[in-house]
């Protein structure tokens, strides 16, 4: 699919490049809700396909936990480890935006940038 000479994948990659420039994010991906990789900007030592499947699994499980508890909808999943943070959020009905950052990065700033990026992804994929 092309929009004015630029492929959809290039447009999505550009959103990720921009996100990776901000707020301590060093890896990001756009993943379909069934766990398939749509676009990614990952370090070479990360298996992007495994990362996609696992983040979609994590998000799916969290969403079910929320719906089972009848506490609304899970808007984002944040996993804080001793070396990194992983954040996953919806980017439209069919995709997820996932980012990985240094564990010391400021969460508020990352979320702000991710919300902007997710909105761009949603518009591109609509």
């Amino acid at each position: 699919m092309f929009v004015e000479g630029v492929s959809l994948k290039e447009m999505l990659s550009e959103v990720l490049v921009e996100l990776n420039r901000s707020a301590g994010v060093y890896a990001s991906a756009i993943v379909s809700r069934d766990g398939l990789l749509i676009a990614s900007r990952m370090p070479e030592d990360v298996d992007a396909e495994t990362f996609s499947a696992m983040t979609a699994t994590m998000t799916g499980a969290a969403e079910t936990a929320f719906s089972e508890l009848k506490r609304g909808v899970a808007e984002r999943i944040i996993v804080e480890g001793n070396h990194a943070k992983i954040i996953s959020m919806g980017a439209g009905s069919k995709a997820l935006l996932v980012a990985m950052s240094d564990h010391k990065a400021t969460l508020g700033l990352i979320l702000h940038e991710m919300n902007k990026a997710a909105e761009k992804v949603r518009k591109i994929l609509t």
Partner: protein
Amino acid sequence: MTKGKSAIDLVKFDEKTSKLNIAGITIAPFHDYFLPSILVALEKQLGPVARTLFLRYAKEVGLRDGQTLRNLTFKDGNFTVEEAKKVIVNFIKMWCSLGWGKLVKAEFTDGYACFIRSTSYEGEGYLKLKPEKGLKLGEDFIRGEEYSQTPKCTIALGYVMGVIGGVLQKNVNGKETECIGNGGKFCRFEIRW
């Protein structure tokens, strides 16, 4: 496969251990709605990614079996497309005849393979999760659909992809482009590398 014998003739039951085996590999049959029921339960927990996980892990098993097949058949690691075709198609034909479905067409060229089955263990098994069968329902049937909205032969597709990838030592991608569980007449796998 031994000439004149079907794959099922090679299945032996060992009364001492109560195990079934074929060519030294222990097997156990499950009814056809067993795997679809597990997939339905996982889809309820994890969403559509459950299918991807099934496919991914079945592919890993197929990959290992494909590598074994390659090591046994092509000891020096050299083979032509025709030789690879023969080995892969024969293996998948035998595997299908153990209950995964009736293989009616196998196409294999350099970079593309297509397998078509007229019956399907997983696809038809999923159709048994309809209200009248008295089993835990498939999501599609809860929504009142007559068939699944997605192809259902996830394990078979993953396994076949893995076998091809293991024999050829290539990264393969595949799709089920028609599925009986999805309302199709056949189950069709299209695999590219």
